[in-house]
């Protein structure tokens, strides 16, 4: 995985896992790799991997059963909130980029409408 330069690495891995949950590649209730395996998979520091899981637990996306492993949360609410958060984040960054290119609000709306019509 390629990492961006200005955002903590653990957050970027969490985003990647979230997108895999949304796309269905990882399903609710699935067992996640051990934190050392996760570190190897993303080639990140083992402490970063532990932090990824503790942060995901804090957000309610994952839970750990002692001695068994870390699992993806099964609650539908969690799934919805990840989805909502991702949609908002994507829209925000898209709008920001277009504004930085000098587009007006009207032009942005026009563009979105045009692409929606195109299907």
């Amino acid at each position, binding site marked *: 995985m390629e990492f961006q*330069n200005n955002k*903590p*690495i*653990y957050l970027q891995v969490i985003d990647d896992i979230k997108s895999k949950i949304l796309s269905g590649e990882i399903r609710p209730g699935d067992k996640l790799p051990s934190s*050392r395996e996760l570190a190897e998979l*993303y*080639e*990140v*520091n*083992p402490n970063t991997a532990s932090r990824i899981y503790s942060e995901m637990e804090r957000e309610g996306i994952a839970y750990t059963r002692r001695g068994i492993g870390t699992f993806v949360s099964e609650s539908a609410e969690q799934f919805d909130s990840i989805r909502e958060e991702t949609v908002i984040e994507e829209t925000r960054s898209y709008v920001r980029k277009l504004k930085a290119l000098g587009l007006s609000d009207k032009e942005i709306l026009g563009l979105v409408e045009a692409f929606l019509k195109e299907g």
Partner: protein
Amino acid sequence: MELVCRNLTKRYLTKTAVDNFNLTFNDGHIYALLGPNGSGKSTLMKMIAGLTNPTGGYVELNGEKVGWKTKADIVYTPTEPFFFGYMTIGDVADYYGDFFKDFDRRVFTELLREMELGESMKTRKLSSGMLAKVKIAVTMARRAKVILLDEPFNGIDLIARDYISKLLIRYAPEDGVVVISSHMVEEIEKMIDVAVFMKQGRLELVSDVEKLRAEENISLADKYRQLYSKEA
């Protein structure tokens, strides 16, 4: 485990390679040792390994001065190849097994299988990428508490580099430290958690990599440029 460098200094006739270096390395971290050529990285590592004597200060591992007693707990892997060309990979394993009690032949054999290398292959015939991989395999097969790697990524391709990174991550001890010196600042950023910057033999800065990103909004490479661009 605690590895302490206190007022560590190495002076040669005309220059000071390491100048009053103070740092405590803590368990469970992977450190990067960064700085331009001649900033004292290799000399520092060799002193930690007990391979060269300080002219001032000392290194202690768990309260014990570094020397023959700590040899078993510290492994130093230099950047230059250090196998004899006539040796087969199996000979290298025997040699290590004889010298180091902690050398785990099972781990080494498993790694060879993963790398698709046979024990009968002569080290002379290996490509530089393969050689670098074997070097890391023998290093990590020793379950040492302090693992010092001098430029492990020099002169090898991307695939070999990725594999070596994975091995380091897989075998980095929870109750020990890994210290990697490298010029490949961008490539090693994600695998380390603490960066130690050196400048003209002195400790310039110690940074937590994720903190740099979270608090200063910059990557390790950006920080490196900030610190050294005037020197280049």
